[in-house]
């Protein structure tokens, strides 16, 4: 106890306690929000559509309306198609954790089966883009990396940065990183235009071109760091920082050693 009270007067005690408190609050919040997600669903499985409707009524209708007609805070889902549902729910963006700026990628709330059911239900409301099958997504065979690069720089780099690392949009919104995103979700995002992202129709960017895009993104993702650590592949800002901190820092350190008298 005595030892503890000594630490209490330590200079770093305040900041330390603050960090501990913040961590504790964060963990509690995480656990609490996770338990909501794990509520088990067991109901009669009449059909995938019916199952999807049930999930929808429980988990989505409070925002999107009982018939997916949309509401004050959420858009209508009629005609968005299975692809849209698969993207939003499969990447964990929906259900949304907080309504502030935009839905973030996180661990999905529903498992693959439930997601498929939801997608089937929403697709049954009105025709919309379907989930691409694995046969369609054979980008290794059907895509061309170089062509994909051209398409990427014309259509994607302005938001997602030259190497797909993501970038800033207005008012705190952002284009997320494309690194580590499954080909299926990239494809779905292109045809459905989630949130701020516009739609890239099959007529203006053909399915074959979309596969090239995916192939280029995957090639950028797997490219070794030629020339050394990349510092995020976000351009000259981190390079300038490193030049000052490590470069000038090291040199000043050595200059100090150089000019002090030896013992």
């Amino acid at each position, binding site marked *: 106890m005595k030892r503890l009270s000594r630490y209490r007067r330590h200079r770093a005690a305040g900041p330390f306690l603050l960090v501990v408190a913040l961590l504790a609050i964060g963990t509690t919040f995480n656990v609490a929000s996770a338990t909501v997600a794990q509520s088990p669903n067991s109901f009669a499985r009449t059909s995938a559509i019916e199952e999807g409707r049930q999930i929808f009524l429980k988990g989505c209708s409070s925002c999107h309306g009982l018939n997916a007609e949309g509401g004050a805070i959420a858009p209508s889902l009629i005609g968005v198609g299975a692809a849209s549902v698969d993207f939003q729910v499969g990447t964990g963006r929906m259900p949304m954790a907080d309504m502030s700026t935009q839905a973030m990628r996180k661990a999905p709330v529903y498992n693959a089966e439930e997601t498929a059911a939801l997608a089937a239900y929403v697709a049954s409301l009105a025709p919309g883009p379907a989930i691409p099958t694995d046969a369609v997504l054979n980008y290794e065979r059907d895509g061309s990396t170089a062509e994909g690069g051209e398409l990427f720089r014309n259509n994607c780099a302005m938001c997602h940065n030259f190497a797909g690392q993501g970038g800033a949009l207005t008012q705190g919104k952002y284009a997320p990183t494309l690194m580590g995103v499954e080909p299926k979700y990239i494809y779905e995002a292109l045809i459905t235009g989630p949130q701020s992202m516009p739609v890239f129709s099959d007529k203006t960017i053909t399915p074959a071109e979309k596969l090239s895009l995916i192939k280029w993104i995957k090639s950028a993702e797997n490219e070794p760091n030629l020339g050394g*650590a990349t510092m995020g592949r976000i351009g000259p800002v981190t390079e300038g920082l490193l030049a000052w901190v490590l470069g000038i820092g090291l040199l000043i350190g050595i200059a100090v050693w150089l000019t002090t008298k030896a013992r």
Partner: protein
Amino acid sequence: MTTAEKRLGNAANFVDERIGAAGWVKKSLNKVFPDHWSFMLGEVCMYSFVILLLSGTFLTLWFDPSQRDVIYEGVYEPLKGIKMSAAYASTLDISFEVRGGLLMRQIHHWAANIFMAAIVAHLLRVFFTGAFRKPREFNWILGILLLTLGFVEGLFGYSLPDDLLSGTGLRITSAIIQAIPLVGTYISFFLFGGAFPGVGFLPRIFTLHVLLIPGAFLAVITIHVMLVWYQKHTQFPGPGRTEKNVVGHPILPVYMAKAGGFFFIVFGVIAFLSAVASINPIWLYGPYTPGQISAGSQPDWYMGWLDGLVRMAPPWETHAFGHTVSWNILIPALIVPGILFTGMAFYPFIESWITGDKREHHLLDRPRNVPNRTALGVMSITFVIVALINGGNDILATNFHLSINQIMWFSRIGIFVLPPLAFVITKRLCLSLQRADRDLVLHGLETGRLVRMPSGEFVEIHEPISPQKRFVLTSHEQAPALELSATDARGVKRPGAIKNKVRARLSKAHAVGLPKVTSEDLKEIEHH
């Protein structure tokens, strides 16, 4: 005499009989250089310039500065079959097909970043210690010239590979040129050889980048260093050091070994950075075409503050009589930097006008002892940092989950509020540091040892500081403010009364400081 000595003697004799160098060389070898880490910053600049010359020459052996179209057929798979300029293709070849080519490219680019950083650090050292004062004003101006040359040389350098990022930079450069009233459009068409991006810009800036500007650099650096040599280096105040002498190590052997060794250290540190950290990965940016753009397009750091100023500029344009004047470009990109650099170049004369001090100075100031100048310096740094932050606002926004609009508004307000605030805080800090110095001289060092007096009170024991230290803390001079009365002896107003009033005001602000400890003060304390 050994044979080696004999041979050396013969060679020296051969040279001396023809150009009579012995006297001059002997004198030069006796030159003395004072030791301080901050005096090495200028050397970092010079050494990184040499490294730039060496690595740059290596790159020219393969680089093709042409804008002619080629189809890339090299080893880098993701760009195979893409149409690009020969400049970009040859940069890819240097990176992937010349062994050590990528290393050299990275050495060249890191050296450029460190060159500019070292120039700025060196400039700050000279400014804060007052090393620019008479008789060194010429060298200060030459330094500003070198910094300006560095901006241009750097911009041209990173533009040469013709990748998407540098092309975007050139697009902005051409817009700045076009914004110049009357002649801008013509200058832009002439420089680029037509409408942007033109056909001739890269080969032209290549010649400037590898011949003209390095030549100018070499000439100015030579004069800069020769003046240091001739005028002898400044030194920090200390025991045994006066305005009339310079104390340090002689050229041979200590300074030579240290400075020579330091060249290899600078080269080594730059090579180390180039080995472990990638810089300007042009193969990821892709070739330049004006219809494409990447999120987070930034210039190199030394141009970042200009870009930040352009970003925060208000959307002002004047449209009149069929002409357009783009204040949103002219003010942040040309007028403000123009004023800043002119003011910086003339600062030595401005300060000497304010203080009325026309004497030579070879002993440096400790920044705290000249609060006004130090505060002005910190104020300028704050200005540039706010601009620099705004220059990277999109990168900050993505990495720290902020909004670019917030950062922009922070900078728009901050650029006016923070620099004056920094001025006031720095001035206060300087004065309290002076107070700390004063306490140290008067009462000595706090030891942390407590002693109980017979009366029962606790007293901390103070250890007196060494006479040398005491001398350092009290040897600075404190010139009084200028006395400039607005009227002459007969009460008649003098010409230029307002100018004198301003000057007196500034002089008074400049002379602010705590009275330093005199030997009388100390004697009095000893009596207690």
